[in-house]
């Protein structure tokens, strides 16, 4: 028999995560929205709250709490700030590359400081030539005297300017079939973050470009083995990356639903709250249905991940479903608010803008369908 309930401990995690988000993250949201910055404060708060340690094993300085706990934390943070949740989930993506593919030496070197938030990680795959086609990568490395000299550019990288450690996918200049992931650290000569993006949503979430000009990467910074780069990157993205997007989408859906319920109970038309009107009730019901369904899909995949099972396909389904659902939910929330839904003082306008950015992140909905159809047809 399947038990669909959270444990008492998981409920406590949720309570702690919710209180953290409401007291430590929420106060920074207005500044992040207005200035498209302010991430230092929330990143610091995430570190103090032990958020970075959640998936890192205890033997490497983490809490070893697993991926269901991570999803709970993401959902609660996203309910308050999707921008913060997005940064947090991509830090987790960077951490995952080490957990899944790092050597013991690499784990010992990087994970303890990643756990405390003293250092921050990210993964850089997308390029101007495409993100849905990682094999079309044009960032190149050339092997010179046992080192890897890296040249290229990545774009749309979350935490481009904040991460200290970036796991970068590059192709062998002399062998286009060989892709390798290399650890590049802030301060390495020739490596620098460049352009910062101004996205339609998730303002305050650092997104930008990085440039590598003859960056000399030592051989001990190859992660997962030479030529195994695609496997390393996709292993992290398929579970943790997509799982992170599910958390962001679920939290935002919850926020849309809460805002819609509140407004519809307070807004009086024809002498009654508009929550009495079927048109409004049906929208709220749709939001609720999608949220419940999305939760089941997401937490099932996370539970499989905690058991050590392959969960990439399940996360593809959950990612597709929740990121599509949240865009619908945000539009419905704006509709319920009527004219007020166009006014920036109402959070639903931010929810709508944030929802757009969830769709293409960690793989577009069409790419998810490609993955899901392969699964169904196999």
């Amino acid at each position, binding site marked *: 028999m399947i038990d669909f309930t959270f444990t*008492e401990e998981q409920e*406590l995690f949720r309570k*702690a995560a919710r209180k953290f988000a409401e007291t430590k993250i929420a106060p920074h949201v207005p500044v992040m929205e207005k200035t498209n910055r302010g991430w230092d404060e929330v990143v610091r708060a995430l570190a103090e*709250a032990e958020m970075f340690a959640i998936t890192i094993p205890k033997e490497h300085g983490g*809490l070893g709490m697993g991926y269901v706990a991570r999803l709970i934390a993401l959902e609660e943070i996203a309910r308050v700030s999707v921008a913060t949740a997005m940064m947090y989930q991509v830090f987790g993506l960077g951490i995952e590359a080490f957990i899944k593919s790092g050597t013991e030496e690499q784990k010992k070197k990087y994970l303890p400081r990643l756990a405390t938030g003293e250092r921050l990680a990210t993964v850089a795959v997308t390029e101007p030539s495409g993100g849905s086609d990682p094999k079309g990568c044009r960032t190149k490395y050339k092997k010179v005297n046992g080192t890897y000299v890296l040249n290229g550019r990545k774009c749309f990288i979350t935490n481009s300017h904040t991460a200290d450690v970036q796991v970068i996918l590059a192709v062998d200049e002399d062998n286009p079939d060989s892709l390798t992931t290399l650890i590049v650290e802030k301060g390495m000569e020739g490596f620098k973050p460049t352009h910062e993006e101004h996205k339609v949503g998730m303002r305050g979430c650092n997104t930008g470009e990085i440039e590598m000009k003859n960056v000399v990467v030592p051989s001990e910074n190859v992660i997962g083995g030479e030529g195994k780069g695609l496997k390393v990157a996709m292993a992290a993205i398929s579970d943790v990356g997509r799982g992170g997007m599910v958390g962001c989408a679920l939290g935002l859906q919850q926020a849309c639903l809460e805002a819609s319920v509140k407004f519809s109970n307070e807004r009086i038309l024809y002498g009654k709250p508009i929550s009495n009107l079927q048109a409004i009730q049906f929208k709220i019901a749709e939001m609720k249905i999608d949220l419940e369904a999305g939760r089941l899909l997401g937490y099932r995949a996370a539970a499989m991940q905690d058991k050590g099972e392959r969960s990439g396909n399940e996360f593809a389904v959950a990612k597709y479903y929740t990121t599509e659902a949240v865009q619908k939910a945000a539009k419905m929330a704006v509709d319920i608010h009527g004219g007020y839904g166009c006014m920036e003082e109402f959070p639903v306008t931010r929810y709508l803008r944030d929802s757009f950015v969830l769709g293409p992140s960690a793989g577009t909905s069409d790419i998810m369908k490609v993955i899901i159809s392969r699964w169904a047809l196999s």
Partner: protein
Amino acid sequence: MLKIVVCVKAVPDQSIADKLKIDPVTKSLPRLDIPLVINSLDSHALEAALQLKEKYGAHITILCMGPPPAGNIVRECLALGADKGILLTDPAFAGADAFATAYTLAKAVEKIGPVDVIFCGMASSDGATEWVGPEMAAFLSIPVVTMVREIVKDQGDEWIVNADYEHGYRRVKLKLPAVITVTRDLNQPKSLSFSGILNARSKEIVEWNREKLDIPAERVGLKGSPTYVTEMAHLESRREVEILEGSLEEKVERLVQILSDAGVV
């Protein structure tokens, strides 16, 4: 090492206060199906204990009387840093007033053994009688200081505290063991941490019922309560609106009439 007991009550979550339903028979709030949270002032009581533990070392026992779901609140207290939890739970305890509650808690303290100090929040957010702490002290024949806002001296067995008093405070010297009820001015409770939640896995929660405490049935719950609630109702605040019409003079005349009828002028 200090031996501290913190009395914690699981109370209805105030954020859903408008959804609470009163039991028409017992005139109380059924706690089984509603979200429960730690009574706010008890968080300050626990924080006082935790600060002493950090300074001098202490063993903190959480004592909570409530239905089985209140065990989650005890677990939360362990996650915050307490060492052991005792849940006093028995259908016979239901409907207890402050007197019966204090008696039950006092019997539990006797069963725990010698303690140095018992912290309680000054009042609960639902009952708000402020009587449980003083009545516990009476049953245990130990001193009590209520409404403590500052602990000035906390070493040895003679403490000095400042307690709210009308528009100021009084400074009280008290000999341990004692009961101290606290106000929110005493401290700022810490938040739950993930590592605290994980550490709570290894901490014990035991359940004691009436039989375990060896208390006669007529001393607990509704049966053991010399006071009982006869009526409980939602207070509805209503506003009547009258829009004054006419010329300025007519509106002023009407306004004066309204105020005069209300006894204001």
